């Protein structure tokens, strides 16, 4: 069967409604089991010893005292893990190199960040494990470190990897560099384009690293058997990818590791990579007992991947009527200890909302002494868009053109050629802009020190390898086994809804679960806003297979030709016209006779979903600035986004609201604070400030539906677009309120107050 099912407009009974989700009761009663809620008899507690230095050569590790402490059953260091070759694999929308995966999991030659794992132990209790860590002696040769991305790019900066020469530069440089890779995207002729411009605006922006902030720390439980098989329960966005990574670094066959994804307490891209999993399996292998490893919140901040801090330069030129003639950007992104920041994705998202003939984007991926960067919801895009949408806003203001009007003049539409390759198919950018403009929020009155800003976002969304299996039970109910982890809790419902819609039965008859790695073929991570699109596609394919078999069985039972049988409203019915008539059969009746008519009925799909539809969104925000303290309050917030089709509108609204509030936190208060020693100073929720309930208002949402022609229900991914626009929207609103353009994230009160005071001093 084709992996591309085209969109078909039809009357819908279940898709688009709001039934209750299947896992809801377990989650509101505390019954649902997350990573740290799993236990096995005889389990040991595993803990990690971490480097206190931002950059140091590891001369020696002495674990002798730890190994003999009563209660300690296993200790591992770099000596227990094999050297890995240079080999790339996809993880979400980003790539990893296994040579770096093993080093990030356990340092080899050097400790490259405060928090870098250096050794791990498994012991009979948490207190014994902590005591054991204190007994491990590590000899470090402390080296100078570098964290700021601009500093790291300078010649003479402390070097993380002596053998790293910038890729993408010809001829190959003769000095190693912290710039791991330089890339460039573009089309047309920006020099000529700028010559045609009546107005050119150029600005530089700086952002700090921020963390995904999932409330559940990483947790896993591993049990290794003497026959070489391992079981792993872990909180992950992708159990098949975790299996692959563990198998590789542990040099085990993929089929020998069975990974069960637990309920996950938030990921947002941060749980796309292994941290403790392979360590837990290795400790279990050595100790011959199950090993449970749960990170503390401090470890999550010190050692798991946040997103990049960055330096962004944007230059845009346009005519006096507001038509953009040229656009340029330089994006310098922190990759952390190993290469692989989302600078490529950021480069591709920077300008794609606009139909531009002349574009040039240069990106630099820069290693610095911080944890290896991981994906964070639309990786890289919020940072690039902070810059671009701020400059667009400035240009619109200088020309006296309404900000939405300016964007409409230049908007990408169906058929627009992007500057990184493909042409855009049917998209809803113009519709979202028009609906935003028509929304009452856009024209509501503002008071003193209040301002309004808008900004827009785009994300490609992805498809990728997806599998599922749909089994018809003997009583007519169905079990749907999914391979995509249900990270936000709405997936199981949405998939069950699509199956019920296809089969014409009640939603409650379909029971959706996420299967472990032994139940299905390879499934990519839940990332890239792909779940409803790709897993939905797979479920529809599997449903249609089941329908085919139901028709065949009905034809057999009723003794009519197959062409005479149609499937409608959950029944096999005469196809109409000249064909043979027969008494209809319900799904349950056919199911009851499945054994006698050939065996159990099932459908399945193994696809690499193509044709994901890009998503666009427009955010409107009102702020009030306290001029005496620099404090910014969010008064009102509206999100307008094209999602293609909202299978379950309540969960789509939830994605829009959740992403917007993460973006608000990113804009106002979140940042990693490092001391001069390169040690993280705020590894906790007290001083790493995510929004609390009293910080934000209700977030109004407008769902726009421009169907994606490549999905049977028109679905586009929706989860990532909502985090892209808030930073720029808020910066634009602040400019509207107090006439000052802020280019440093976070827009924290000391920065805002300084800008206000500097401006007043300049005047006076």
């Amino acid at each position, binding site marked *: 069967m084709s992996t591309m099912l085209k969109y078909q407009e039809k009357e819908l009974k279940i898709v688009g409604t709001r039934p209750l989700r299947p896992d809801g009761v377990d989650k509101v009663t*505390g019954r649902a089991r997350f990573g740290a809620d799993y236990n096995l008899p005889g389990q040991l507690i595993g803990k990690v010893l971490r480097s206190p230095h931002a950059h140091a050569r590891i001369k020696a590790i002495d674990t002798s005292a730890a190994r003999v402490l009563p209660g300690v059953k296993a200790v591992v260091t770099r000596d227990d893990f094999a050297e890995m070759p240079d080999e790339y694999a996809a993880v979400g929308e980003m790539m990893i190199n296994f040579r770096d995966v093993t080093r990030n999991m356990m340092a080899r030659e050097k400790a490259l960040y405060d928090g870098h794992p250096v050794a791990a132990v498994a012991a009979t209790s948490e207190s014994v494990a902590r005591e054991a860590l204190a007994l491990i002696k590590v000899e470090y040769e402390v080296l100078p470190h570098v964290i700021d991305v601009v500093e790291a790019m300078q010649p003479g900066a402390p070097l993380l990897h002596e053998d790293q020469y910038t890729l993408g530069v010809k001829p190959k440089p003769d000095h190693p560099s912290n710039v791991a890779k330089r890339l460039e995207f573009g089309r047309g002729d920006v020099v000529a384009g700028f010559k045609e411009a009546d107005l050119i605006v150029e600005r530089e922006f700086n952002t700090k690293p921020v963390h995904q902030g999932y409330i559940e720390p990483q947790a896993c439980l591993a049990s290794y058997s003497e026959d070489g098989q391992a079981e792993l329960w872990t909180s992950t966005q992708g159990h098949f990818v975790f299996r692959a990574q563990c198998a590789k670094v542990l040099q085990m066959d993929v089929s020998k590791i069975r990974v069960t994804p637990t309920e996950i307490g938030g990921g947002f891209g941060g749980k796309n990579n292994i941290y403790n999993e392979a360590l837990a399996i290795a400790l279990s292998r050595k100790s011959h007992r199950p090993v449970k490893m749960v990170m503390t919140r401090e470890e999550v901040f010190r050692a798991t991947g946040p997103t990049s801090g960055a330096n962004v330069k944007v230059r845009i030129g346009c005519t006096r009527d507001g038509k953009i003639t040229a656009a340029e950007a330089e994006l310098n992104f922190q990759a952390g200890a190993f290469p692989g920041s989302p600078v490529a994705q950021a480069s591709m998202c920077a300008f794609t909302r606009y139909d531009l003939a002349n574009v040039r984007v240069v990106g630099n991926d820069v290693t610095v002494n911080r944890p290896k960067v991981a994906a964070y919801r639309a990786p890289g895009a919020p940072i690039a868009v902070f810059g671009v949408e701020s400059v667009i806003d400035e240009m619109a203001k200088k020309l006296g053109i309404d900000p939405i009007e300016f964007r409409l003049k230049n908007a990408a539409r169906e058929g627009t050629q992007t500057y990184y390759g493909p042409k855009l198919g049917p998209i809803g950018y113009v519709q979202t802009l028009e609906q935003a403009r028509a929304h009452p929020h856009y024209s509501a009155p503002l008071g003193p020190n209040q301002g309004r800003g808008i900004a827009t976002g785009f994300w490609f969304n992805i498809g990728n390898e997806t599998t599922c299996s749909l089994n018809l039970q003997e009583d007519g109910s169905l079990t749907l086994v999914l391979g995509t982890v249900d*990270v936000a809790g709405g997936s199981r419902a949405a998939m069950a809804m699509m199956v019920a819609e296809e089969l014409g039965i009640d939603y409650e008859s379909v029971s959706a679960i996420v299967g472990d790695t032994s139940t299905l073929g390879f499934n990519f991570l839940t990332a890239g806003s792909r779940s409803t699109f790709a897993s939905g596609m797979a479920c529809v394919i599997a449903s249609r297979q089941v329908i085919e078999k139901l028709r065949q069985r009905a034809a057999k039972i009723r003794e009519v030709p197959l062409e005479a049988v149609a499937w409608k409203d959950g029944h096999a019915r005469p196809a109409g016209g000249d064909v043979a008539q027969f008494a209809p059969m319900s799904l349950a009746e056919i199911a009851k006779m499945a054994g006698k008519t050939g065996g159990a009925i099932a459908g399945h799909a193994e696809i690499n979903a193509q044709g994901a539809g890009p998503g666009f969104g427009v955010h409107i925000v009102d702020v009030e600035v306290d001029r005496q303290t620099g404090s910014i309050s969010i008064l009102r917030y509206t999100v307008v986004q094209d999602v293609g089709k909202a299978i379950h509108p309540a969960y789509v609204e939830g994605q829009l609201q959740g*992403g917007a509030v993460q973006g608000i936190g990113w804009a106002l208060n979140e940042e990693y604070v490092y001391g001069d020693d390169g040690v993280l100073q705020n590894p906790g*929720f007290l001083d790493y400030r995510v929004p609390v309930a*009293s910080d934000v208002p209700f977030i109004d949402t407008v769902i726009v539906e421009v169907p994606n022609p490549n999905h049977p229900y028109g679905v586009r991914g929706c989860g990532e677009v909502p985090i892209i626009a808030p930073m720029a929207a808020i910066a634009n609103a602040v400019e509207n309120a107090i006439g000052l353009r802020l280019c440093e994230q976070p827009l924290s009160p000391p920065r805002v107050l300084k800008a206000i005071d500097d401006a007043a001093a300049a005047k006076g």
Partner: protein
Amino acid sequence: MALNHVSATVNGDRVEFLCETGHTLLEALRDELRLTGTKEGCGTGDCGACSVIVDGRLLCSCLMLAVEAEGKSIQTIEGMATGESLHPLQRKFIEHAALQCGICTPGILIAARSLLERNQNPTESEVRYWLAGNLCRCTGYHKIVEAVLDAAREMRGG
């Protein structure tokens, strides 16, 4: 090391457990009593995922020692439903899609119930400020606040 013996009441049931002096109530609930509905999000009282009620008082179980539970009456998420009936807050959370990943949900339900027991008709602002000690990263709080206000309405008989 000598362990401490603690007797307490949890969700109406008499319980006994052993613990180290340094163990928190959260650790005792999860590891000794296997009541894993209460979660650890931070261990420092900044996220509220470990919220429980002790002798009628809403608090973070990560900031109370297990030994202090001696003789006390503790309520956790596992005791919020009565038999087969979910508490109105639990029902409203599901109806309003006020949870996504669900990790913060037990803590928020316990905190919200504590609010509604003191204030049957809270304003939106009062709900937000009362729940400021419970972090949620998925929902943006919107549907949570709606669900709490709707549950309050139902509980008032409206």
